[in-house]
């Protein structure tokens, strides 16, 4: 049984698709979902509020909001997701969009999804962009 799913969310279209996949997985498995936002060197200070799309998707899919956590972590997206395999998130599945915000199509270097697939010790779900066909 899957108890914890983590999804990376940076507000990009691919991240929004990944969010929907993660929440659907959580609904089907009964897992808790952690929506993780990586706060970079240039990130906003303080604690960014839960983006409306997160709450809207939770409602749309009929999930219990108490089982969906919004979490902001310092670091680059890859490091933040790799860390969340440990406590307190203890993610058993990582979900991520194919491309993050501002990334170039086909870019290998700097691809969070490829880095995760290479380094994560739990299953990684990479949600493709529509342009991937």
């Amino acid at each position: 049984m899957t108890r914890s799913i983590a999804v990376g969310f940076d507000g990009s279209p691919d991240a929004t698709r990944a969010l929907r996949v993660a929440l659907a997985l959580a609904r089907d498995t009964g897992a808790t979902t952690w929506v993780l936002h990586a706060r970079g060197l240039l990130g906003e200070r303080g604690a960014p509020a839960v983006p409306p799309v997160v709450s809207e998707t939770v409602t749309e899919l009929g999930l219990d909001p108490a089982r969906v956590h919004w979490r902001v972590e310092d670091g680059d997206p890859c490091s933040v997701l790799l860390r969340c395999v440990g406590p307190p998130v203890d993610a058993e599945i990582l979900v991520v969009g194919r491309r993050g915000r501002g990334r170039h199509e086909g870019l290998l270097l700097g691809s969070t999804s490829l880095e995760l697939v290479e380094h994560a010790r739990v299953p990684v779900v990479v949600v493709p962009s529509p342009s991937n066909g």
Partner: protein
Amino acid sequence: MTALVLNADYGAQAHEEAGHPERPARATAALQGVTDLHLGDDLVVVGPRAAQRAELARVHAAGYLDELGAFCYAGGGDLDPDTYATTDSWTIAVNAAGAGLAVVDALAERGDGVGFVVTRPPGHHALADRAMGFCLLNNVAVAAAHLVDRGERVVIVDWDVHHGNGTQSIFWDEPRVLYVSTHQWPLYPGSGRPVEVGGPHALGRTLNLPLPPGATGDVVRRALEAAAPTVEAFEPTWVLVSAGFDAHRADPLADLALSSGDFAALASLAGGFAPGPGRIALFLEGGYDLAALRASVAASLSTLLGEASAAEAPTSGGPGSEAVPAALAQFHQTVEVLATSEEEAT
């Protein structure tokens, strides 16, 4: 004493992204901090050189070097939400890494002086196989590995406000390098807890002393003073400083509250770790307020050279007085527990 300065910023104007805080003007400000000291004949400008591939490959994965070079030559772009590269960034980063090598070689040859490496992009976030946090190649790690290859024992003192996760990771299991970091916590990149103490072959060779937002210079000074016994027990033959100046109270990217005078005090403490003349070099890391950067560079370098400077008064009274002893206790406890586990496993 002589200052050996290398400005690796030749051509680095081409490593720039509109509106990004890691910008060419930073190197200009740092160099102004050097010229403010009016060193005359005591200022030696070391000739630049590019790092050789084998020198980079001591700390970076071959595949990463290939990909980064190809990415830049193809026009560059964003490597992560913080980190950019341009067409010329590969050449500039290789020169920045080579700058550190040139300075430590020049110091070794002279047997005297203080090195200051004005490089950008900075390096201490760069991992063996990944760029991050404005950093492409890990300049201080390339220099430290160069020295280790010659049989030296290197302490890297990292007083940048952000934890140097790349440097820590590269030397995680290397017993001939001691990594000591003071940094704001919590803050990017999210690593740097006191329980991160090094790998099985290098237990206790990583010492992290995280500090709360608002901490003043007295607390950071206390942190380096507290690190002194660990450094002395290590018996370093070289001191390399990841000299970020973004812990200054004017810096826009973080929340520590140091003055330029505090950096002078930190430089004095780091200088005390050096076993003799010609064995310390500072590497420019962060620092994004240009006036603070200029003043802090001048204060640090003048202190190491034994020259007077007009630095701001040291600061005190901020939060975090309990942070240093707590972190040090966690460090020692973790090392002891892991060492015991290792013994039991063997």
